[in-house]
């Protein structure tokens, strides 16, 4: 049981940080499909900078910095160049995936994987199986709670929601939707960078090209599954992680009797089912009919 809890937390936490970036953007009226790009950028920058400096703090700072810069770029493209946010987000994902590949090759040659000498500090062996939990995992519930308070229990959160849902209403009370979106994206960029760093620096301390493998998109799915609510998205990510854990367990149990690819597919199948269920619960409004408002 403890093994399950620890494994699920370790798998879910990177996704949760990234999903919170998606929640922030969604509240501000942007469906951020660049989460995958932000996540891999954070993962890459975290390991590379840790490897170069020997300091995890520098790695985390770098992960946050690069992810924030990419988020600022996304804002520029959407708000100033008036690009479609969906296309711009997908472009950002492509930029992140390709850019990290290029960066690793430029610095380390054609290896495709980088190892960091140190990782994010954990509780350590004194805590038994819980010793595998690191500070970002432990901080995660507090971070989610803080974000929930910010979004749902402050006037700032109301204004952000107004910018997303009814930009004209926001403008009518003196809020600047473009500025609010910038704040949401930059704050989200910080969190997504941390999520990426947790993915690479949290466990194996390795960055390999393409290692996010769709987890950014699963974080996006968690945003939708959780109806844009920080706690909802967190539980959605935990659910996805649980399914993934069960998949690995199933692989061990069934061994050769079940096709490996089928077992690996389970988490993604669960994601699709989860989105379908949440859409049914909300009255069956598919994503593509959600109005993309301008500000």
């Amino acid at each position, binding site marked *: 049981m403890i093994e399950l809890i620890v494994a699920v937390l370790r798998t879910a936490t990177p996704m949760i940080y990234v999903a919170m970036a998606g929640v922030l953007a969604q509240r501000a009226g942007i469906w951020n499909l660049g989460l995958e790009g932000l996540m891999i950028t954070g993962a890459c920058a975290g390991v590379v900078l840790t490897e170069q400096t020997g300091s995890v703090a520098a790695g985390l700072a770098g992960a946050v910095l690069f992810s924030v810069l990419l988020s600022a770029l996304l804002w520029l493209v959407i708000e100033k160049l008036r690009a479609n946010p969906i296309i711009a987000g997908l472009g950002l994902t492509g930029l992140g995936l390709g850019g990290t590949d290029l960066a690793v090759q430029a610095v380390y040659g054609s290896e495709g994987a980088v190892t960091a000498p140190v990782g994010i500090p954990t509780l350590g062996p004194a805590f038994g199986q819980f010793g595998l939990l690191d500070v970002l995992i432990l901080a995660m519930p507090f971070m989610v709670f803080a974000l929930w*308070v910010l979004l749902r*229990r*402050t*006037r*700032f959160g*109301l*204004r952000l*929601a*107004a910018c997303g*849902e*009814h930009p*004209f*209403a926001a*403008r*009518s*009370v*003196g809020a600047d939707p473009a500025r609010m979106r910038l704040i949401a994206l930059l704050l989200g960029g910080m969190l997504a960078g941390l999520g990426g760093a947790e993915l690479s620096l949290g466990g194996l301390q390795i960055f390999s090209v393409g290692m996010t493998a769709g987890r950014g998109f699963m974080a996006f799915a968690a945003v939708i599954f959780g109806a844009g609510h920080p706690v909802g998205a967190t539980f959605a990510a935990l659910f996805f992680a649980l399914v993934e854990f069960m998949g690995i367990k199933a692989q061990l149990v069934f061994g050769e009797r079940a096709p490996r690819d089928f077992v690996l597919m389970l988490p993604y199948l669960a994601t699709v089912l989860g989105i379908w269920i949440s859409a049914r619960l909300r*009255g069956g409004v598919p994503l593509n009919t959600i109005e993309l408002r301008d500000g």
Partner: protein
Amino acid sequence: MEATGSRAHGGDGVAGAGEAALACTGLTIRFGDFTALADVTLSLAPRRIHAVCGQNGAGKTSFARACAGLIAPADGAIAISGRPLRAGQVADARAAGVELVHQSFALPPSFTVAEAMEFGLTGRAGAIYTRRGLQARWAGHLRALGVEAKPSARIRDLPVETQQAVEIARALAGEARILILDEPTAVLSPTATEALFARLRRLRDTGVTILIILHKIREVLAVADTVTVLRGGRLVAGPEDAGSVTSDSLARAIIGAPLRPAADAAADAAAGSVSRDDASEDLAALVGAATPHGMSRHPETATRRVAELAGVSTRPATDGQRLDAVDLVVRAGEILGIAGVEGNGQRPLVEALAGLVPLARGAVALDEADVTALSLAERRRRGLRIIPFERNTEGLSLSSPLWENFAARSLLGRSALALIDPKRLRGEAEAAFATWDVRYGSVENPARSLSGGNAQKVILAREIDAEARLIIMAQPTRGLDLGATAFVWQAMREARARGLGLILISSDLDELFDISDRVVVLQGGRVAGRFDPPYDLAAVGAAMVGGDH
């Protein structure tokens, strides 16, 4: 009350009233090449209700938005109680106490009433609240203003008049000293309008200066202390004491030219054969100067029933609208008006007639033949035509060429694999557009290139053809200017004269009363009243809100 110069009248309404609550000098607003407001100078006295009126496109909304800081004027200055406003800064205008209530309300639909109160407050935005604390904080404010909405209710679940009351309460949450309302009566029933006016009078008596934009003269005379008229972006009169204004002089000031020629122009455009009485009555209805009464043009009851709903009920749609045991008959050569506050079954009525929703109960007949089980395509073949609610999303494909929009009517009934002849279809479209006096560049231009009036003419040209038997007109004149509105009415009268049956769904009672042979009121999906001319405004209004008067 035609003014010779705006400045000469600037002081009339404020004599002896001290410093102006709101003053603007040389205010000019441009959108690209279009001048929405030109060199407007006026000053409004504090603690009074000032009406600003004019037709669509007169610049009323632009004026209101500039005062609230939502639009930066191209030229000129606005001062609140003598203090100049920084142009285009909502926060600055709000700090000076200016609050604007929009025509189509600006509250996020998913917010609760308490959240809607809170989100607009100025000051520290980071303070943490609890849900209960927030609701408790605003309950008293709402009660003091007589707003009957729970602080925990969602905006989207409230009826429009309550939404508006909430928005007014939102505007008064801070230290509002000048409240601007942009056509607040457009969505209200007569009873709710009266309640709004009573609320505004109470606010005025507590020291708030009110600027209310109206386009109905009857309403102006009912509520205003002073009247200001805009026409084509220019100040033509005011502010003048409402006591010195008559409905006739106000109508003249709003319309500009003497009454007759304007009516003739509209009639000519429609190549109409309708009497003078109709035309001048139309104008009266347009500005709401009088409540016109349909004349005795009742068709003989022996004529064919082109449409009939017998006990029709539908299941609630996603917005909760439904029909509940509705019986209606439309005969050849008559216009049946459907009155009602929006959202009381108008859309399900159209969908039931069109066959777009399955009926829970009842039957629909077209031209005395049961069509309950037939598709829209089959019903169209039998002469059903629809002018839909939303011109730009349901009526036209804005990105498609005009000829494709026009050809859509004949393509529905054909096989998906049938070949089409674009050249012939383009020719048909050109011919029809010429008949209907559509002003356009080329039939290859997208529909979005047309103005609202011309876009509506394209739909009319498409829908009102030789085979039409029943035409449903859903809000056909909403957002149209005077000339285009008169054109649409003319087209309806001609269709009636040709023996077609028409259903006119409108939220404008003046329009309904002017043109309908009978009026049916929908309330909560039921027929709440059936009226014959001459119409009794109070009785119709009571039926709209479910009153038992």
